[in-house]
């Protein structure tokens, strides 16, 4: 009987360590702990150019992540990029004249949407629209303009 009970202990230890491994992967390695699916509300922002923004890109305000990009589509009538931002419900006091801009984290980092609060008394609601937007800065475009300008000055 001694043999079977040590065997049971080993099986128990094995299963427990496997489950600990899974939990470790879920909590320590992945983003499950930092951003769980809270209740969120969706607002739409239209950009002239959303650059390299992707679904799941972060939405932050004052440097703090408050939501993520839930969908990006192209409007064939106005030729704009329509970006849906799903923002955590606990941050429901953003004024309705908030500015949305596409920024890049660092020189080569990923792109994110930055929200800068305005001064209005009305808050953004679910399904609301952000009217004031600023497009992504396209590095090639900026470089091109700069080179063009310096060539012009040399003449």
């Amino acid at each position, binding site marked *: 009987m001694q043999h079977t009970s040590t065997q049971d202990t080993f099986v128990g230890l094995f299963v427990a360590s496997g489950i600990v*491994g899974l939990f470790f*992967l879920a909590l320590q*390695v992945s983003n499950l702990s930092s951003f769980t699916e809270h209740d969120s509300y969706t607002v739409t922002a239209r950009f002239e150019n959303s650059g390299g923004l992707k679904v799941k890109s972060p939405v932050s305000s004052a440097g703090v992540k408050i939501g993520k990009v839930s969908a990006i589509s192209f409007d064939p009538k106005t030729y704009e990029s329509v970006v849906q931002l799903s923002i955590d419900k606990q941050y429901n006091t953003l004024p309705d004249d908030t500015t949305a801009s596409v920024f890049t984290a660092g020189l080569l980092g990923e792109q994110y949407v930055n929200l800068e609060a305005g001064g209005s008394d009305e808050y953004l609601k679910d399904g609301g629209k952000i009217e004031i937007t600023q497009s992504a800065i396209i590095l090639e475009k900026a470089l091109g303009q700069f080179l063009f300008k310096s060539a012009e000055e040399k003449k």
Partner: protein
Amino acid sequence: MIELLQNLGKNTRTGFTKLGRGTFFLLQIISGILSVLPRPRLLLNQMYSVGVLSFLIITISGLFVGMVLGLQGYYILSDFGAEETLGVMVAASLVRELGPVVSALLFAGRAGSALTAEIGLMKATEQLSGMEMMAVDPIKRIISPRFLAGLLSMPLLAALFSAVGIIGGQMVGSGLLGVDEGAYWSQMQANIDFQDDIINGVIKSIVFGFVASWIALFEGYDAIPTSEGVSRATTRTVVNSAFSILGLDFILTALMFGDN
């Protein structure tokens, strides 16, 4: 020439016949699983020989694979000044690919070959037919518990492999090479997605466990009951499992990670 064609036809036919037998065998195993549940002792014994005995090889290999990833990743990433993303590289490659695939290959080598040899010898020494004589169904009594044990052990082993590997990568990366420990973990947490990476990795390992146990048990059950037949069956188990695991991995990866 004619002989060549005849051989080709014969080999194709025996191949398909074998696949058919294998599928029928799989259905028998699955229908036998229900009768394992009232006898957890059978399952527990097999969990021991399939899972616990593979524990050491899996964790040690995982540790070394993670450490190598940490070293190689550091050399490449430091060329771009991106050592901080070492954690992402180690964790993504382990959780998505290396964890499930390498642990499944080790599982096929460690547990699969043992299963084939065991079942094949049981067949050669007529223990299986002896059981049938006593009206004990060998599928329910012998095969199904082993199959279930493999199916349950494989995701646990793969998770252990990845977890130990990530710790190994951290040991080399921030212990030896001086990557910032906080950056290692926080970059990892920011970029590894629970649904897309971890869950898909677990699904992969379940599929590999299913296939590896099925092949091992079938080759044993289908072995020619001589010592040479058993040894050939054991070789076939390892070869076929490796092929199926790597092939399936390609298909699963294309399905899971294809859209981004």
